[in-house]
């Protein structure tokens, strides 16, 4: 399913959080990178229809998001927030089952297919062993994986992930991005805000660079992530090295050259 941004923007009061963003998504893993406050989360919320566009349009399969019923959008696009805080003691299985909400009618009970989707999602994100634990007792990283499982349980073809690796240790961060890679190869469209440029360069098909609410570049990782653009956007100097498998790795310095 095609998701498209056409010259879209969002303002709050008189401040534009994002302007003139155009983007076409049709499969693959797109990494959003940029400094704090550059509009990554805003772009994800815009794509997920959580915030309406103040200018331009967002369209899903050719239809304006604003004209689609919310449940229909939710069946196509799954959004995983950055904030994983949960106050109420639901079990992990209950939280993941919430991902089936867009598929279930008001008076419907969960069907076998819903339970199967939930088990499969928990298995893929490696939280099956936590199924009966309370989410309030989990570590931040475990909660983040549970929320990812909930998004997978929706079986939506498009996944939007806001900092999916923010509170994960190295091993789990690699696992989660590896899973995103797998999902992208299975035909899903994935957009993830990723702070770690090395991870972004290693796993993404395309990288979009944001700065001060503008989408300034979008393309293959080694075209977008260049020393001069990183210098301009982040204000740091970067040495680009290459690992044995040809992937770029960055080493950053504060002294701007």
């Amino acid at each position, binding site marked *: 399913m095609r998701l498209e941004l056409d010259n879209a923007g969002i303002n709050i009061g008189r401040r534009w959080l994002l302007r003139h963003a155009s983007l076409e998504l049709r499969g693959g893993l797109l990494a959003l990178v940029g400094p704090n406050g550059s509009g990554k989360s805003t772009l994800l*919320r815009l794509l*997920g229809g*959580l915030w309406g566009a103040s200018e331009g349009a967002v369209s899903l399969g050719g239809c304006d998001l604003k004209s689609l019923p*919310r*449940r229909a*959008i*939710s*069946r196509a*696009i*799954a*959004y995983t*927030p950055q*904030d994983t*805080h*949960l*106050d*109420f*003691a*639901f*079990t992990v299985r*209950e*939280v993941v089952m*919430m*991902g089936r*909400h*867009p598929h*279930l009618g*008001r*008076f419907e009970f969960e069907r076998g297919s819903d339970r199967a989707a939930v088990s499969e999602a928990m298995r893929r994100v490696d939280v099956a062993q936590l199924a009966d634990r309370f989410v309030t007792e989990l570590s931040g990283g475990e909660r983040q994986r549970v929320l990812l499982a*909930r998004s997978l349980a*929706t079986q939506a073809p498009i996944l939007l992930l806001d900092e999916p690796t923010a509170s994960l240790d190295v091993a789990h961060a690699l696992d989660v991005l590896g899973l995103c890679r797998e999902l992208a190869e299975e035909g899903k469209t994935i957009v993830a805000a990723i702070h770690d440029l090395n991870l972004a360069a290693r796993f993404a098909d395309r990288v979009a660079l944001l700065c001060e609410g503008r989408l300034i570049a979008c393309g293959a990782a080694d075209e977008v992530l260049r020393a001069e653009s990183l210098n301009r956007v982040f204000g740091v100097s970067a040495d680009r090295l290459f690992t044995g498998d040809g992937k770029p790795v960055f080493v950053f310095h504060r002294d701007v050259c």
Partner: protein
Amino acid sequence: MALFFAITLILLAVFTVLGVSVGSVNIPSSQVARLLLARITPFDWFDASDIAPSQRAIIWQLRAPRVAVAALVGASLSAAGAQMQALFRNPLASPDIIGTSAGGALGAVIAMATGLAMREMLALPVFSFAGSLLALFAVYALTTRGGRTPVATLLLAGVALSSLLAAASSFLISMTWVRWEVAQEVTFWLMGGLDNRQWTHCLMILPCIVVGLGAAISRWRELDLLLTGEETALALGVEIEKTKRLLLVNAALLTGASVAVSGVIGFVGLIAPHAARLLIGPSHRRLLPASALLGAIFLLAADLLARTVIRPEEIRLGIITAGCGAPFFLFLLLRGRREAGY
């Protein structure tokens, strides 16, 4: 879970029978149980023809309505509390603490002081519903920003609004002093109690419970999602504004109905949903019916206590519930301060 509901239903039955049999004249529980069953079951499954007419009158005309009203008020205040806690995403929200009950009371006082309540049966419940709704909406609009309600803001707004509404009620009462009997009735009723409740009061509150609880239970998935955050709920297909409006109206309806039949009774709407959440978890599919059941049991027990501790005198019901509820509220507040830092 089945065990929980079995035990609470048994407790509900036990306290109902106890509530009816204990009083200035004690009536054997077996007779009470038999008569109640004979009255509420169809055909002649239970035979109660051997019970003396005077006993029957005491059971069915005097005590049964009071016990039924107690159970229904407990259930509806707890269901209102559970829904407010979902609306504010805050476990300390409940009808009396955030001023919804005070709004209902002001509405009812207006209906009584103007004499409307005398002329029109439905004036009292309608006015107290309107009062509850306005008070709840005011607190919601004042305290909630971006779907979040800080505990301190909620409690402070509740305190301020409650005082303001109570002052308005007092003002109206003082204006009615010229008509002594009206003022006395209003004051007595404001303190909260179940004296002289009749079957008509049951009929007033019963439909509100059926609607208010039914509408909420049928949307249990939306309410669960709302607890996990508005953004997530929206992302998973919940129509946030519609759901919140429903919660607002429901909670006001349930509070208004309770206030209309029993005055202001505090803390039930706080204790019962908390106990229910501890026992069976936060999912509304189970939480809403469980809160209602526990609220009914709690108020039946409190009423029983109120009538027996200093027999033949009665303690006001509101005193008993505050005596249990206020320490519990302080405990929650202290625990919350330690864990969540407010």
